């Protein structure tokens, strides 16, 4: 198969086949690769919208009230959160890179349920459009924050019900993807692809898929009850009717904390694929990395209470939640040390995927370690609901999951599109984004420790300097983003043709042509050894 270098013409999946032509051949495709591309376009469009909203928030904070009103600001941080969480970072890696590469990595021709895969994309688009619609209709864009805490979310006249309904549908889409991946990994591995011969990205997708399956239904019922609460006044979360708003917080975080691992685990999987390839060395501690994915998913399910340390909970529960929160750091640390050990004494070639991965480690480590500060009961009282939290989760989610996604995008771009991008531009973009990111969010750590509360429209004069630094950082960061995506989009047409295996990767996707043929492999490969065998 390797002898077929550059033979991109033999039936790439971009060529039309089947019943439909043109746009319809995409909208009704059941090919996991095409669905991956559909998701990529949709997810990145929502991401762009979320970034613009974030920029507007930062713009307000450079001089509160000059550009944006209070009401608009409340909607900005709500819709920014909803879009970036539910429409970008949760689906980002599993539905794009996961859909495209999971079957390729395990030597399958497609996922287990190709039509359900398409259905899940349709539901994603439907849910996304409903969320967008909620911004422009009814009583105005939701203003509750992405957490939809009761009782305010019951009382507000803004268009919360529609947004919640959109989130409900998105949850359905996410569950179907998870269900599909679990079944695919169990049933469709190529002959000889034993569990411990699977690439580690597959392991991380497996852990993610289970989390999607086991956590998302709780979100579904929580938002459904909130909609019923608003429509029929059932009173479950309304103290005047005997309900308890804190129960909503519990239900919400029973999903939304594991969701954090739905976001970060696939990114960890992506960089785990990248390090061995660019260090020309087998991955260090294969089983440790595989099991740590499962351990993170497992512990991640049991720590939701740490979002509610100040909400009213018994000391016993708070101590237990705090303890388990610390335990999550162990498998995360195991991963970081394994990545570094993989690089140690390797023949390192710094291409942009590796650069993004290294940035990932740096930013994620800051995010992870500040997570321990948040998880400490005494410190949490002090920083709860401040910019410290905002900085922390942007370091983990954006610096972690986001940069992991960018790393994967650069790593697999040649395979997905059959073109190379400009390496220099990619590195420059990564560098600018790194600078911008730290200006944008590190200043928020300082602001948080100084006592600046999150979601506030206005602030005291002593916070001004850091707010200005943060806003300037947001401009630099977006400049980097524009260069990065500009480079990738330019390369779609103008880039050099990609060879089948530009990085010398050993996993299965590199053994087929770039872009892959419709059926992925001429013949289903037979696997005789582990995924990272470098000589």
């Amino acid at each position, binding site marked *: 198969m390797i002898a077929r270098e550059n033979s991109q013409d033999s039936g790439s999946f971009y060529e039309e086949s089947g019943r439909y032509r043109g746009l319809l051949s995409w909208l009704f495709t059941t090919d996991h690769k095409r669905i991956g591309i559909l998701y990529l376009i949709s997810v990145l469009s929502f991401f762009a919208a979320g970034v613009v909203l974030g920029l507007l928030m930062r713009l307000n904070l450079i001089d509160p009230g000059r550009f944006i009103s209070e009401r608009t600001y409340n909607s900005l941080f709500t819709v920014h959160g909803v879009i970036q969480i539910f429409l970008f970072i949760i689906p980002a890696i599993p539905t794009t890179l996961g859909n495209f590469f999971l079957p390729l990595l395990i030597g399958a021709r497609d996922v287990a349920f190709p039509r*359900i895969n398409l259905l899940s994309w349709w539901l994603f688009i439907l849910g996304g459009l409903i969320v967008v619609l909620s911004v422009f209709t009814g009583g105005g864009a939701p203003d509750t924050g992405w957490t939809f805490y009761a009782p305010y979310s019951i009382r507000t006249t803004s268009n919360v019900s529609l947004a919640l309904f959109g989130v409900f549908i998105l949850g359905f889409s996410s569950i179907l993807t998870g269900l599909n991946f679990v079944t695919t990994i169990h049933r469709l591995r190529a002959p000889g692809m034993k569990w411990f011969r699977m690439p580690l990205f597959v392991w991380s997708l497996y852990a993610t898929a289970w989390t999607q399956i086991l956590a998302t239904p709780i979100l579904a019922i929580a938002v459904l009850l909130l909609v019923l609460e608003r429509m029929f006044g059932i009173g479950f979360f309304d103290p005047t009717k005997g309900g308890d708003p804190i129960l909503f917080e519990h239900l919400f975080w029973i999903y939304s904390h594991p969701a954090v691992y739905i976001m970060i685990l696939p990114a960890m999987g992506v960089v785990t694929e990248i390090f061995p390839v660019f260090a020309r060395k087998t991955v260090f501690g294969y089983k440790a990395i595989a099991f740590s994915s499962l351990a993170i998913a497992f512990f991640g399910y049991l720590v939701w209470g740490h979002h509610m340390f100040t909400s009213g909970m018994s000391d016993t529960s708070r101590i237990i939640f705090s303890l388990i929160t610390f335990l999550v750091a162990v498998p995360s640390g195991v991963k970081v040390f394994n990545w570094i050990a993989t690089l140690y004494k390797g023949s390192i070639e710094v291409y942009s995927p590796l650069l993004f991965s290294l940035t990932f480690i740096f930013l994620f480590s800051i995010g992870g370690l500040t997570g321990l500060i948040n998880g400490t009961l005494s410190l949490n009282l002090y920083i709860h609901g401040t910019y410290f939290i905002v900085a922390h989760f942007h370091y983990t989610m954006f610096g972690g999951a986001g940069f992991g996604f960018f790393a994967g995008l650069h790593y697999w771009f040649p395979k997905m599109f059959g073109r190379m991008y400009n390496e220099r531009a990619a590195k420059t973009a990564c560098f600018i984004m790194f600078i911008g990111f730290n200006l944008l969010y590190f200043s928020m750590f300082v602001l948080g420790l100084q006592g600046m509360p999150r979601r506030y429209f206005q602030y005291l004069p002593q916070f001004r300097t850091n707010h200005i630094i943060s806003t300037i950082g947001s401009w630099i960061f977006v400049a980097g983003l524009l260069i990065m995506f500009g480079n990738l989009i330019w390369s779609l047409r103008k880039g050099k043709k990609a060879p089948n295996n530009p990085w010398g990767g050993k996993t299965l996707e590199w053994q087929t042509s770039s872009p892959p043929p419709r059926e992925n492999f001429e013949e289903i490969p037979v696997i005789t050894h582990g995924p990272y065998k470098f000589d």
Partner: protein
Amino acid sequence: MEKTETVHAVHARDIEGAKMGMWVFLFTEMLLFGGLFLLYSVYRSKYTADFHRSAAELDIVLGTMNTVILLTSSLTMVLSISALRKGHRGLSSLFQGMTILLAIIFLVNKYFEWSAHIHQGIYPDSPVLLAMKRGDIIFFSLYFVMTGIHGLHVLIGAGVIAGTLVFTTQGKLGPDNFVMLENTGLYWHFVDIIWIYLFPLFYLIV
């Protein structure tokens, strides 16, 4: 093109995979109801006395009837699968039809039960209900929401069985291709099991 067809055929024949997908889906359904059962248990421990009093107002005869109806429908469902596996399409269709009929009877019963409460002025956010104690408000809201979402599942289940019934009569399902009916059966038993928990929690513990 031909190759694409074979791949999908291979997928379609992966009975294990299809069943696994269904089981995983049922996990998610279980957790969806799990959230509701969680609320129930919290509020039950908070308002024990109110829950006892309110539960006594539910119609235990209708509740018991519905339990028997739903359990019987599970039996007819199983019989329809056995019949199909043995190649008796007509018999299988008959049992599937009976299952749908029982589902409809269940929903009609539920309708009468709900209307009786609504005529008394008891429904979420009603003035009569809001005048009652807090535990009563929560009990009846839980009752309407939980049996309502369960009823929705019965309705969806009946719809799906109607689909398999059409496929069976058209000959698309048969002794060598019964996994769709079997999965439908799994779903139906799940709906049944949820009711088996709802019944004692709302009607029996008084």
